[in-house]
């Protein structure tokens, strides 16, 4: 409702005025939170985010958002189902399993680094490490595990690391995203990610939200954009465009390039915070990675 009102105002031409009002509203929001309850603030965001999509796509069930654009586009969904029937990423999952089980030089394995031997835990990533003061994604944790055991880190966008991540996701299929924002430091990281999501970037001046929230489901150039809700659930993905498996941060870099913004480093702080925000927004949705995308 507020959105519609705002649009009207812009149409009328009172851009400046409406922005002023919004700024005032935003700062009023911030000022009124003298004793912040982070969990409640995050929950409010989550609810508003979900409601937005519920209104936009009233026929799409919440659980469906784990399927990306295929949740809202029936024509491409059919092709996607054909791919998922015998998906090319099955090779990568096997490879990932082999790598996962292969002991390091010191005799230990990945299983020693993770809770529950690394099985069925994808939904708990990323999490905020209060001691380190940073967001830990699954891919970062895999490399931290390697380094703790005297091995070289793997490249973050594709290849062996993507395969291991795919295998770990495959053992977690159906588990629901359970990423939380426990304290103030975590909330800072979450807000950084949120800020990235809503900030316009690149020569084309688009934010993540422009394509995947405001015009989600509409044709942008040749493609229908996927809804932001549930975006991280299916990663890593095998993209037809890549003809191989790639991680979420590889996709972020591709998105940024599309809007002519210089991509930021995979697993750098900015993308990790973005993944954190997106995963929090997707809480309650099932893990179904790896999956195939166009």
């Amino acid at each position, binding site marked *: 409702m507020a959105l519609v009102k705002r649009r009207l105002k812009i149409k009328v031409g009172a851009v400046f005025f409406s922005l002023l009002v919004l700024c005032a509203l*935003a700062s009023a929001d911030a000022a009124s939170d003298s004793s912040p309850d982070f969990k409640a603030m995050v929950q409010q965001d989550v609810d508003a985010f979900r409601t937005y999509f519920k209104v936009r796509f009233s026929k799409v069930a919440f659980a469906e958002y784990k399927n990306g654009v295929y949740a809202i586009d029936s024509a491409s969904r059919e092709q996607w189902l054909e791919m998922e029937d015998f998906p090319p990423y099955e090779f990568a999952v096997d490879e990932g399993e082999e790598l996962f089980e292969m002991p390091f030089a010191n005799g230990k394995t990945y299983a020693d680094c993770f809770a529950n031997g690394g099985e069925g835990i994808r939904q708990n990533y990323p999490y905020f490490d209060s001691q380190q003061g940073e967001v830990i994604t699954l891919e970062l944790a895999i490399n931290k595990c390697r380094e703790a055991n005297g091995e070289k880190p793997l490249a973050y966008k594709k290849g062996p690391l993507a395969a291991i991540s795919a295998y770990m996701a495959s053992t977690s299929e159906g588990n629901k995203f359970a990423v939380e924002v426990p304290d103030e430091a975590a909330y800072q990281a979450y807000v950084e990610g949120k800020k990235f999501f809503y900030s316009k970037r690149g020569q084309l001046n688009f934010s993540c939200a422009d394509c995947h929230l405001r015009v989600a489901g509409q044709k942008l150039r040749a493609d229908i954009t996927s809804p932001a809700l549930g975006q991280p659930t299916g990663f890593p993905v095998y993209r037809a465009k890549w003809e191989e498996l790639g991680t979420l941060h590889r996709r972020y870099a591709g998105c940024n390039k599309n809007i002519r913004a*210089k991509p930021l480093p995979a697993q750098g702080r900015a993308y990790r915070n973005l993944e954190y925000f997106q995963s929090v927004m997707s809480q309650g949705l099932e893990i179904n990675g790896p999956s195939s995308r166009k």
Partner: protein
Amino acid sequence: MNKVKWLLYIVLSMTLISSGRLYADIVVKPILEEARATLSKATARDFEWTTTRKLIKEAEAALASGDEDKSLKLAKAALNEAEKSLVQANYAEAHWQDDIPR
């Protein structure tokens, strides 16, 4: 007499300026320098565009090959982009909350 002297000065300095090197030093290089400095500010804020660095490189190449006019054009374009990306960063800082569903 005085007028003639001034005219001579002007003609002389114009020839000097338009004679490649000096023109590059006085006009093109400062703009390029400013473009670089502005871009690095945008980069530091994670708002660099994929197109700007290319423009700077092209301007440098044109300068090296002695095409000052082309270089000036590219340097100006680069500076323009770098400034816009910085404006974008500032805009985002002030307005990123505008599109949040509430």
